[in-house]
């Protein structure tokens, strides 16, 4: 049994702080978080240089993640995080294998909506662009795509035997990311995070052979999240590189 913690329209500091609180706590139960952001937020990758990301003034808020990869404009998307011990079967072995396992569930969920998504492989994507610093404009062979565009951003942090996996499933388009793959464009109709979430949960339950139980973060986790969360939007952390 895994915990399912839903945080709809949460602040960027809470979203990032709670993910790190779960990563730091050796005793934390296996947890899947589903969340959205308020206000819309641009998140930079941990190693990105501040000046390498354009249009930072066009998002409602800015944070730097502790996971790697490029910048993401968190708007019109369902964000999820998975936090588990590294020994868990989902994360055993090389990092790319863990992406394959998680992305298999995402492909299943997208197929439920009639979207024939696939891993990029050797295909050159129409959404790839040089120099924007945006996650959705760069791709690797294991990225989830449909219509030859990238539709899911993913990144991990591995610390002290535990893993935090971030995923951003694009439901609609955002001004900073342009013509990437979105669920709404493929469907031709609206798809909210609350529409997509139950389908994703069912796919993960099937693929990961787990059951989810809705829960709230414990008071201690909330306290740690609040404390850790302040750093993510601080000038010092934003401009660390």
């Amino acid at each position, binding site marked *: 049994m895994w915990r399912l913690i839903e945080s709809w329209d949460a602040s960027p500091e809470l979203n990032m702080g709670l993910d790190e609180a779960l990563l730091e706590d050796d005793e934390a139960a296996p947890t899947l978080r589903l969340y959205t952001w308020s206000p819309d937020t641009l998140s930079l990758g941990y190693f990105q240089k501040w000046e390498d990301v354009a249009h930072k003034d066009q998002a409602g808020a800015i944070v730097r993640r502790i996971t790697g*990869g490029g910048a993401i404009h968190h708007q019109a998307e369902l964000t999820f995080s998975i936090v588990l011990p590294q020994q868990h079967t989902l994360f055993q072995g090389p*990092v790319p*294998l863990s992406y394959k396992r998680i992305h298999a569930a995402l492909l299943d969920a997208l197929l439920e909506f009639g979207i024939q998504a696939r891993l990029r492989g050797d295909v050159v994507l129409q959404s790839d662009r040089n120099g924007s610093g945006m996650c959705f404009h760069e791709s*690797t062979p294991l990225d989830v795509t449909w219509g030859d565009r990238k539709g899911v951003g993913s990144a*991990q942090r*591995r610390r002290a035997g535990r893993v935090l996996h971030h995923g951003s499933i694009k439901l609609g388009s955002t001004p900073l990311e342009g013509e990437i793959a979105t669920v709404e464009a493929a469907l031709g109709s609206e798809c909210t995070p609350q529409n997509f979430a139950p389908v994703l949960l069912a796919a993960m339950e099937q693929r990961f052979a787990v059951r989810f139980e809705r829960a709230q973060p414990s008071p201690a986790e909330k306290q740690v999240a609040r404390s850790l969360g302040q750093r993510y939007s601080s000038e010092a952390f934003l401009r660390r590189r």
Partner: protein
Amino acid sequence: MRPDDRHYLPSHEWVKSDGDTVVFGITDFAVEELSHGNEDDLVYCDLPEPGRKLIQGETFGEIESVKAVADLNSPVGGEVIEVNKTIEDHLQVLAKDPWDKGWLVRVKPDDNSTEHLLDAAGYEASVGEAEG
């Protein structure tokens, strides 16, 4: 068998004595976990500046592959006296030769204690199950 002239952490860092200093690095297993055989998949590495005091077991740096950021943990405590600057710009060196040219930092250790570390056989056993 991994080199038996050094000690290891279960989190895949190694430490090797060299005169009155020690050298830190990461193992081939760590490289494989992060890059899965693609040497260009290692993209960034942050290492400490000389003079920084390291605490045994705590993070001394970070490394990013295309899809994950991982902490680097200090096998022993001490003061950083030299950093392999080549690595920060040329991570292929680390991917190709994690045991020698891919060393990360040179440290003046607080003491010579290694009881808390694994020898080569112990490390082999710790990763043996994962390697199958």
